[in-house]
């Protein structure tokens, strides 16, 4: 085999794999805390990428209006569920989070938008928009059914995916978009050329893995999130607000999704529905990681990226078939290795 081609495929695979790893991490995080299998993760990717792309051309993306609308619904839900015990602090908090925050964001977007807005500002705005959507999505769609089965949550998750993908078409149109690169720097090592973009991908992935590890291992909030994942009732009994844990998880996941999207959109043209397939591959990595292990998920994601790169070179027609069936033997091995779930202690 030609070494240059192999190295090139490896590099390509690792870059894609790093993106899948980011998404896989977010999926694991959300599942661990809320038991929601986050199918709309792909929409966070497209929303982040395409909002950024539109901002870069000086247009206001429709997503910011969606954030305002979702904020209003979230506010209404807050009021409805607390109707028997409304007190000022609660209402003020809800107004601040659900109304003031998205409206201020809307104002900020209109004030700052323009063809010459710096890239960093556009990125920040895109991230904030998607973060708000992620936060409200949990409040609206999942918090009211947080106690139900994984299956019901999963179906609700699919519903969110359908709605958000449809809205994506409304906001961004059927045409694909691309955005300016984050940096034009590049490093050459032997036959390989590393762009600033791909270096940013590696850096952010490693940064997130380390960051999440520190967060969950050493901070009170991180431990509280883990506790929620391990035992919901136990967490509530020590005063941890599980609804807050869920919101934090969704916030992190939406930001991670949006960052992934912003990292990809300068490299490939993204369409309103591209996110789904990208999300699914992160998802495969997450499943291989058993929905619990961050490092394993990251490694699995890199493997998925590499397998994808090689199969698109050698059997491009069957690329997806190979990627998606890759998972079965892994699942079987994991199931065989897993201890008996029902085993009881005396």
């Amino acid at each position: 085999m030609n070494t240059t081609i192999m190295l090139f495929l490896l590099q390509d695979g690792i870059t894609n794999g790093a993106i899948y790893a980011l998404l896989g991490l977010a999926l694991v995080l959300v599942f661990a805390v809320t038991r929601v299998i986050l199918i709309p993760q792909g929409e966070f990717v497209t929303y982040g990428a395409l909002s950024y792309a539109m901002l870069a051309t000086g247009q206001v993306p429709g997503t910011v209006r969606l954030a305002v609308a979702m904020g209003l619904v979230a506010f209404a839900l807050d009021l409805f569920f607390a109707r028997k015990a409304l007190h000022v602090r609660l209402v003020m908090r809800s107004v601040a989070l659900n109304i003031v925050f998205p409206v201020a964001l809307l104002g900020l977007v209109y004030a700052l938008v323009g063809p010459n807005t710096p890239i960093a500002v556009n990125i920040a705005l895109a991230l904030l928009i998607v973060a708000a959507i992620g936060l409200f999505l949990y409040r609206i769609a999942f918090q009211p059914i947080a106690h139900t089965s994984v299956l019901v949550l999963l179906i609700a998750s699919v519903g969110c995916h359908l709605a958000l993908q449809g809205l994506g078409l409304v906001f961004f149109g059927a045409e694909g978009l691309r955005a300016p690169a984050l940096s034009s720097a590049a490093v050459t090592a032997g036959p390989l050329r590393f762009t600033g973009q791909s270096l940013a991908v590696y850096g952010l992935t490693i940064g997130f893995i380390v960051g999440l590890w520190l967060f969950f291992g050493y901070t009170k909030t991180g431990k509280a999130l883990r506790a929620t994942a391990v035992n919901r009732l136990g967490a509530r009994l020590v005063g941890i607000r599980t609804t807050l844990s869920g919101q934090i998880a969704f916030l992190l996941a939406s930001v991670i999704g949006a960052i992934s999207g912003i990292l990809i959109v300068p490299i490939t043209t993204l369409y309103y529905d591209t996110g789904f397939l990208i999300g699914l591959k992160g998802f495969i990595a997450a499943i291989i990681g058993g929905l619990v292990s961050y490092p394993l998920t990251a490694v699995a994601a890199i493997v998925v990226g590499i397998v994808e790169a090689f199969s698109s070179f050698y059997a491009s027609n069957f690329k997806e078939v190979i990627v998606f069936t890759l998972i079965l033997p892994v699942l079987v091995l994991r199931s065989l290795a897993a201890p008996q779930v029902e085993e009881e202690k005396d």
Partner: protein
Amino acid sequence: MTQRLPLIIFALVMAVIPLLPGIPPFWIVLLDNIGLAALVAMGLVLLTGVGGLTSFGQAAFCGFGAYTTAVLTTAYGVSPWLTLPASLLVSGIAAVLLGLVTVRLSGHYLPLGTIAWGIGLFYLFSKLEFLGRNDGISGIPPLSIGAFKMLSPDTIYYAIWVAVLLSALLTMNLLDSRTGRAIRALRRGHIAAEAFGVQTPRAKLLVFIYAAVLAGLSGWLYAHFQRAANPTPFGAQAGIEYLFIAVVGGAGYVWGGVLGAGIVVILKEVLQSYLPYIFGGQSQLETIVFGIMLVLLLQLAPQGVWPWLMSRLPLKPARKTRDTSVKLEHRERAAGTSPVLLHIDKARKQFGGVLAVNDVSFDVNAREIVALIGPNGAGKSTTFNLITGVLAATSGKIAVLGNEVANAPPQEVVKLGVARTFQHVKLVPDMTVLENVAIGAHLRGNSGAISSMLRLDRADEAKLLAEAARQIERVGLSEQIDQLAGSLSLGQQRIVEIARALCVDPMLLLLDEPAAGLRHMEKQRLAALLRQLRDGGMSVLLVEHDMGFVMDLADRIVVLDFGTKIAEGTPAAIKRNPDVIKAYLGAAA
């Protein structure tokens, strides 16, 4: 039968609909689509709602059914009716292959695995040359009877709905049988079912194949309805939608599948045709609204619409009278080579670095009540699990009447006449007491899935139910026989477990904390029952924390501490044993 009449009425209504004057042809098309979706959803009800195996991949089995007939009829000119068995067979074989892998998956891996192969198969359909790649296959001939060709939606309508009604009938028959009870027990975990001889992997594979064959049937009908097949309707989205249909309708109910299909198909149609008028031609709006309605519906009725509807109808299930005169033959006793009923010799169980059971030895003789006591974590339940084959011993010997059982699966151990109850009650809460207890007699019946579907199992079934009713009467729960097990108090549920164990016709009864949650009087009744069983020739090995109960009842006591046997003897001797006082009883009187 209470189930028959509504079914006949429903069938008549469905038969008349296309004949009504003025029915828009478009409605008939909708009903055709509903029927096609209902078939798949019904399989999912059995697989997911009843069996607890969530599958996102059912659309792929429709694909197998549709493509099989598409290829055979167009490329080889085979008659459509001849391709029906072929379509079902191909879906079934695909299900066996995928199922062998899938049913081994545990927990969340299972639904996730189905998403993965669902997507993989979709891409396979759309890439294979002989399946026409993305364009698919067109020009599939219509179904025909003699010269009559089912070309229009209102002719194939009958084919579709006959299939739906027949499948519904067969499915309900299956659920209300020996095999059905085994399937219904799957969702609550496999340990309890296996303890009574149910081959759970086989039962899981059975429902998996059943659901796939129904999906294959739907695919076959679809191909002849559309007269074409392309990959789109067999992709991940469709698989998700079928599951959604089942959940919306009520995943645990056969009619929930049909109802869900009606709701979803009509909802989608309404959204597709009216939303553009309201919002002025925006594309994709129906997906948005559809998605939002999905979330909304789950928030309002997470159990599905069917049970919600049923709970609002003033229907009372008729109290069934049961013929208890039919006798079930005694179980064939295993040949014994040893006078000792249960012989445990240096049994040891290691979990990683933890020694849960450390070379424990003791015997249980015929007509004897032996109690196993010790602190939590002493290895009592682990010992039970070693005896019943739930866990394999690391080393040592366990024999029932001289037949070595170490490392035999639970299904083999129960055949030797060892029946058990569980520390954490393992009943199926949405099955009646009678049905739960009848699972205990699983090995004493022999009707399979096919004979149950065709109702050839009734004589066998009557015997099993009569035996279950007798055991329920024996433990004093006749009043509760038709109640759902989940509605009983925990104490009563423990007694139901004892009745279920008695249905095995056991020689040795293993009871894990049978008296927990019972009141003084109930404990006395339980003790009396156990003595009566012993005097009738049965032996009992029990784990119990209530020292009063144990000391009063047991002939012999074995004390475990940290996995090690620290004492064995009569209650009087145990009470005075200094080691037992130090480790377990404390400063006794």
